[in-house]
C-alpha cells in the first residue's frame, strides 16, 4: 500500500529511541488516534526501536501514513543490517530473550499492533513492520 507521506529516522543511540517515540507520538496525534491507541503504537515503537539498536546494532525507522479508503493508518518499519534472527517463531514467544531484557519486545509489539510482519535472515539483518489503523 502506497504511503501518503513518510519520514525516516536513524536509530543509533538511546536518544534516537526516544526520538522515534516522540515522532511516532506526533504522527499518531496528527492522525487523530485516541490516547490509548497513541500509547499503544508509541510503546510498540519503543520496543522495536530498542531491538533495532541492541540486537541489530543500529538501523532505521520509517514512519508512514497510510490511507485505505476512509481508513487512516500509521505504519512503522524498523530495519537493521545486524546478525538477524535465527528462529523467528521462537523470538516471538514471550519470555524468550537473548539479552538482558524480558523477552516481551517482539511479541508485545505484535499484540499492540493491528498488523505485524517480520523478515529476518541470518547475517543479513531484520525488518519488522507494524501498522496500527485508526
Amino acid at each position: 500500500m502506497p504511503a501518503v507521506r513518510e519520514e525516516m529516522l536513524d536509530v543509533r543511540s538511546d536518544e534516537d529511541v526516544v526520538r522515534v517515540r516522540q515522532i511516532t507520538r506526533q504522527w499518531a496525534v496528527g492522525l487523530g488516534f485516541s490516547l490509548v491507541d497513541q500509547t499503544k503504537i508509541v510503546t510498540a515503537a519503543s520496543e522495536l526501536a530498542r531491538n533495532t539498536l541492541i540486537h541489530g546494532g543500529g538501523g532505521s525507522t520509517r514512519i508512514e501514513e497510510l490511507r485505505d479508503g476512509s481508513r487512516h493508518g500509521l505504519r512503522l518499519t524498523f530495519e537493521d543490517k545486524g546478525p538477524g534472527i535465527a528462529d523467528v517463531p521462537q523470538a516471538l514467544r514471550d519470555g524468550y530473550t537473548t539479552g538482558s531484557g524480558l523477552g516481551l519486545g517482539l511479541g508485545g509489539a505484535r499484540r499492540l499492533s493491528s498488523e505485524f510482519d517480520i523478515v529476518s535472515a541470518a547475517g543479513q539483518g531484520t525488518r519488522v513492520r507494524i501498522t496500527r489503523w485508526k
Partner: protein
Amino acid sequence: MLDGKPPAERIPILKLGEFLLVTIQVEMHDRLVMTLQDELTHQIVRHRARGVLIDISALEIVDSFIGRALGNIANMSRILDAETVVVGMRPAVAITLVELGLNLDGVRTALNAEKGMALIRRSLGPAGGLDAGGS
C-alpha cells in the same frame, strides 16, 4: 507534555524523612533508567530509607525496559528493607502494559502520591513514617 525537552542525564531523588521521593518528569531513555535504578539503591542505603515513592504521572509510556526497572527497584528496595510504591500511572499506560504482557510483579502501586504515602506508612506500622519523628 514531555516532547521537545532535551534528555536529562539524571533524575532528582528527594529525601523526606525516612522516605525517598522520585518524580519522573523527563523522557526516559534507557541509560537514564539504569542510572535511576543504581542511584536509588545507593540512596536507600545511605539515608536508611524505609520507603520509596516513584511518581510516574508524567510518563506517557512504560515499555518493557522501564517496567523491568520499576520491578528491579521494588525488589532491591525490599531486600534493603524499604517499601517502594509507584504512583500516578496513566490509564492509557496501564491498558497498554497489560496488552504488552507486563504485569509488574512485586510492584506496589497507588493512584496518587497521597494514597501511595499512606500505603507506605501503613506497611511500616505505627512506628513508621514522618509523624513518628524519623529522620
